[in-house]
């Protein structure tokens, strides 16, 4: 019973982290139709910034806020100074499909190398603001800590915030419109390029938050978020890559599948389970389980 409760709770908190990464990928995909491989690098870089600020200021919360802000700045900067020129320049031929992917992969390498230069390749830790020791339930300790609870709450709050922004504000309307029909949005007076940069900034902020929530339970090193990128992507594919709600739901499904197979069968199955889910979704319903629209063309 305890094992079951633990599995459910850890599924929820890992699912919450996947959800942040998956939302970051979806935000970029909606605006740019690119899978942003640099997301792992952006997230870990801003986490390093958060780590530095946390150490200097002594407060995790200041570090968290600076990670989110620098994530937004970095995301906007990458779109403005790297991606936009490439989209302007590469307009025809088979390279159109490959160039953005290559560029984001290249950015991933650049960012991770820069981290290596500044902070070195050693493992660091970020002290969590609340205890990471397991809670006591029914007289025995389970692998779910107050910090995991904090992760759940933080992610839920940011989801609510994001939903409000997307559904209730003009900026959210512009974001949705230019994702849905960029040409028409342009004609209606929306500055699609600027909105796209905003999408990248939001994605960067989500990545920074994901890093600051994930790293205290793990270690900080340049490749720490690479696995999360893959899981975030799988969650996004389950959800249909286009839908923010789908991204969260997909992340939860993935979180449960991965944690339950790890708890009840073998911890070695984490990656294979995720990969099998990805293949199954892509083969059976490539447009995603939660995608309302008809299947994607490519």
């Amino acid at each position, binding site marked *: 019973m305890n094992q079951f409760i633990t599995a459910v709770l850890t599924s929820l908190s890992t699912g919450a982290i996947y959800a942040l990464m998956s939302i970051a990928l979806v935000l970029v995909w909606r605006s740019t139709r*690119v*899978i942003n491989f640099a997301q792992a690098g952006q997230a870990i870089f801003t986490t390093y910034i958060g780590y530095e600020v946390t150490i200097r200021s002594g407060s995790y919360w200041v570090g968290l806020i600076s990670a989110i802000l620098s994530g937004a700045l970095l995301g906007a900067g990458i779109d403005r100074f*790297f991606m936009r*020129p*490439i989209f302007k*320049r*590469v307009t*025809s*031929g*088979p*390279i159109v*499909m*490959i*160039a953005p*992917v*290559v*560029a984001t*992969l*290249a*950015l*991933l*390498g*650049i960012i*991770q*190398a*820069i981290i290596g*230069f500044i902070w070195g390749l050693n493992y660091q830790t970020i002290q969590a603001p609340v205890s990471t020791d397991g809670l006591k339930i029914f007289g025995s300790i389970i692998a779910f800590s107050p910090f995991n609870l904090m992760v759940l709450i933080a992610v839920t709050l940011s989801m609510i915030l994001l939903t409000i922004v997307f559904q209730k504000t003009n900026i959210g309307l512009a974001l949705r419109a230019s994702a849905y029909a960029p040409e028409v949005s342009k004609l209606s007076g929306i500055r699609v390029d600027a909105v796209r940069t905003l999408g990248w900034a939001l994605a960067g902020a989500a990545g920074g938050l994901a890093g600051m929530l994930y790293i205290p339970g793990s270690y900080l090193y340049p490749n720490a978020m*690479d696995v999360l990128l*893959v899981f975030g*992507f799988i969650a996004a*594919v389950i959800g249909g890559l286009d839908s923010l709600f789908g991204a969260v739901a997909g992340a939860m499904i993935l979180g449960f599948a991965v944690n339950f197979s790890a708890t009840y069968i073998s911890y*070695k199955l984490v*990656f*294979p389970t995720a*990969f099998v889910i*990805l*293949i199954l979704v*892509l*083969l059976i319903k*490539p447009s995603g389980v939660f995608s309302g629209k008809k299947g994607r063309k*490519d």
Partner: protein
Amino acid sequence: MINLRDKGAEVWENQGRAGRVAIAVGGIAIAASLPFMGGTILNTPIADYESVLVYPIAMFVLMAIGLNIVIGKSGLLDLGYVAFFAIGAYTMGLLGTKTGLNTWEILPIGIAMAMFSGIILGVPALKLRGDYLAIVTLGFGEIVRIVALNLGALGRSEGIQGIPTPPGIFGIEYAFDSHRIYYWTLLILILFAIWMVRRLSVRRAGRAWESIRQDEDAAELLGVPTFKYKVWAFVLGASVGGAAGVIYASKTLFIAPDNFTLQISILILACVVFGGMGNIWGVILGAVILGYLPDRIRFLSEARLLVFGLVLVIMMNLRPDGLLPRKKREKALIKKGSS
């Protein structure tokens, strides 16, 4: 912008049969005598010139040619190419240490294993396109590494040690430090791969790949069995990667999962894109430059990934088609088609 590719093609096309044979023989002779041409000035800080010629240069060239079949010729974005390299290397490692087979007997087995895994991955994955294919192949590359890391028979994180060197053939002995012998072995494989790609390019398969690369839907409508040829491209690319893996394991005598990270896939992709996707000479040039320079310049060798990244980002911005792009004629056709 000047296009060396077109200049080269012009020279080649204006030659008679005798001239072409002369160019080919001359080119092979120059490539084969490279180990004798190096002075100490070409040594890198970590290794001497001859061993750099084997790894990374020749190895990168071979793998880049293989990956070029997948990415350059047919436009399929494969980010897990290192998987086939790893499968070739582990086939060599396992059979070489557990059975009495020697490298030359294992080479076809390794290639077959790589091709087989190419089919296993390709049949489900090639139904997807673009970024989806990229992420599935990326996942496959990681899966192979994780299996090697967790399977006791493959030595887990210690990998496999004491892999035998190839036995001598034609009176040539393969000593551990006789780099030039390995270089010539790889050169023969490279020449064979070039020959294979060039032959296929002008035949049905090459035309099918070209049409898939330009517009897959149109190709399908015109009756090209696109799926079949995509799997073929994938499998041929895998076979070259597998061959490179067998030789690599036989040369380094020791393999571990750490040798087969995603980084290798990205480096080979960088070689292909840097040199010029789809053009075999561009790809070779890209692999030579990107294989050699970061090792040569001490500052760069510590920042290999940074250099590769910067080079790629700059290339994508300034010259997205690579150093030696494909023929202009083909590009003109594409432009016309897409407007």
